[in-house]
């Protein structure tokens, strides 16, 4: 399942990150990669607010579609 389809408030494990290599690497350095937990906190103004490790990030829909979750 893609992160863009996830339910608000639920925590998932990341299955894989698709898309451009640069973005994959960047998300990796934040701690978003295979096996790590990610929580969708809310959807705001077309962006997805997620919790990765101990921080909140807003990511756009394109990026949310590149994050594949285990479920």
């Amino acid at each position, binding site marked *: 399942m893609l992160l863009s389809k996830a339910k608000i408030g639920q925590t998932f494990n990341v299955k894989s990150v698709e898309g451009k290599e640069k973005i994959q690497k960047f998300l990796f350095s934040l701690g978003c990669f295979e096996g790590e937990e990610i929580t969708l*906190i809310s959807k705001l103004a077309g962006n997805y607010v997620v919790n990765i*490790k101990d921080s909140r990030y807003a990511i756009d829909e394109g990026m949310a579609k590149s994050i594949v979750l285990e479920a």
Partner: protein
Amino acid sequence: MRIALAGNPNSGKTTLYNAITGKNENVGNWSGVTVAKKEADIKKKYNPKGMDVRIVDLPGTYSISPFTGEEKITRDFILGEKPDVIINIVDGANISRSLFFTTQLLELGVPVVIALNKSDIVSKRGDQVDVDALSKALNCRIITTTATSEDGLLKLMNEAIEVGTDKKPQIQPDFQGKDSKDSDTARQKFVDDIIKKCQVKNRDASKVTLSDKLDMIVAHKWLGLPIFFAVMWAVFSFSIEGLGGYLSGYSNDILFGEIVPNAANSFLEGMGVSPLLQALIVDGAIGGVGAVIGFLPLVMVLFFCLSLLEDSGYMARVAVVMDRFFKKIGLSGKSIIPMIVGSGCAIPGVMATRTIDDINERRMTTILTPFVPCGAKLPIIALFVAVFFPENVWVGPSIYMIAIGMIILGGLLLQRMFDWENTSSFIMELPEYKIPSIKYAFSQMIDKAKAFIYKATTIILVCNTFVWFAQAYSWGLNPVEDQSLSILASLGSLIAPLLIPLGFVGWQLAAASITGFIAKENVVATFAVLLAVASEEALHLPGGVLAEFFTPVTAFAYLAFNLFTPPCFAAIGAMNSELGSKKWLFRALGFQFGVGYTLAMLITQIGSLVVYGKPAVGFVPAIIITALIAVYLVVTIKKSGSKGAKVGVEA
């Protein structure tokens, strides 16, 4: 000895840097505030042994492999210039993410000292970190600090200087799979294992917090934009009409209207200075510079408010709110950062475009950022509002709304003209909200005030002296009775015909706009000098001498003309270095000039028809020019559309 500060964005690097060097660099809790490295000597207080120590503040980065411009600056500095010590600032509130970068730093051979920062937040949350175990696992010294209250900084600097004197190379971390193809994953696993051993967390970060609930309101799909406008409106009307306007009114009327010139006159008369020199000093220097400095309180109030707003964490949310709208014009939420920085000064604003990855988005942001009225344009706004719209409190703040409108419109046009497609993606860390620091806002305000006074007493003073001279003398260097025979009048007359379609008649208006390219405050100063001869009255009184040149409609148009045509030369220089090619610089300047010119023309001509029921001066040429611009735009857009190629990418 050189000590470099490195760490994740928003870990407190610049706050720590300011504390140990006594500098006053702009701090923001959103990534991309520091885009270039900054360097300064350490303060005595933190250098008891009096060693020769330089501190280098590097842009925040999440890893050593460059994903963004700021990461590249940091990487190039550490690898190329080999500092003696690296202080790695680790955000105590997010250790698990920070340590990924830390382990990369430890492998560079340069000794590392870790500042475990934000210890106040950590203890408030009830989390615990076993510093000794962490230090052992990473083979480097760790000092807990709170940069905001300067706790632990002396100890940190002592350790750093000691490590730098020892010159022992850093012991590298060793973990399984370090040399394998998947070394990054192995590194993350290594970090995770350390965290498990060294940190006890009492807080579940994935639970919805108060900060999240606030976000749901301020970054709401529909409420987000009106809230942003309301906040900006409040800040600008408080600065221009409220406290700032009140204080500026006083300093313009009393201080620079009466006290200073009277004192200067009687002082100079007492000294027996020649009347000519006295006129130069009082009318030229004090008159012009005073007209600008009179607006200092207004500028100070604005910067105080903007600092508070930045410090609270709200600006990162603005980027989220604007992302959706900016995406439609080929930009993204990231473009809002240079624009917010640009509300202080366009130069750092333009420089901040470096953090944008996509080259087309970066170019577009560079071209559009100077549309945001900067601190130097504020005196022009305040002057015109005071003279022509004393009753209409909405005019001042509305200028900023027009600026946002012009950015959107300009973006749409640029996108059509060059057929740009945006490929960049948007990600923004959302720091927790905090109560803004009054102390920080105050020191920022004082800093900006100093810079404002410095500029007024240097570059503006020089320009003013020239303007005074040029309006008092003819080309034969004889004093003239009639200003219209002066050097300045003949220079202004060369440009003046160009401004007739805009309804601006008179060489004075052309002259003021030209001096504005050297520094925007000059527009105000030049009027002050030119009109001092015509009238004893202060420049900024409602319905004052300026009213001889403008109707309220053309005054508004003149304001728009000065705000939306290209910025001052210094900002054009910054645009040149960020755009990286003369071709793009000329395109950018041409575009900005076209936008400013057309907007002013439309305001004058349409406004005059609507408000006064009759066309303004230059109506016929205005129609011709409008038609030409329209044809040019249609042709360019058609051409770029049919080519289908991405003009922006190849150039």
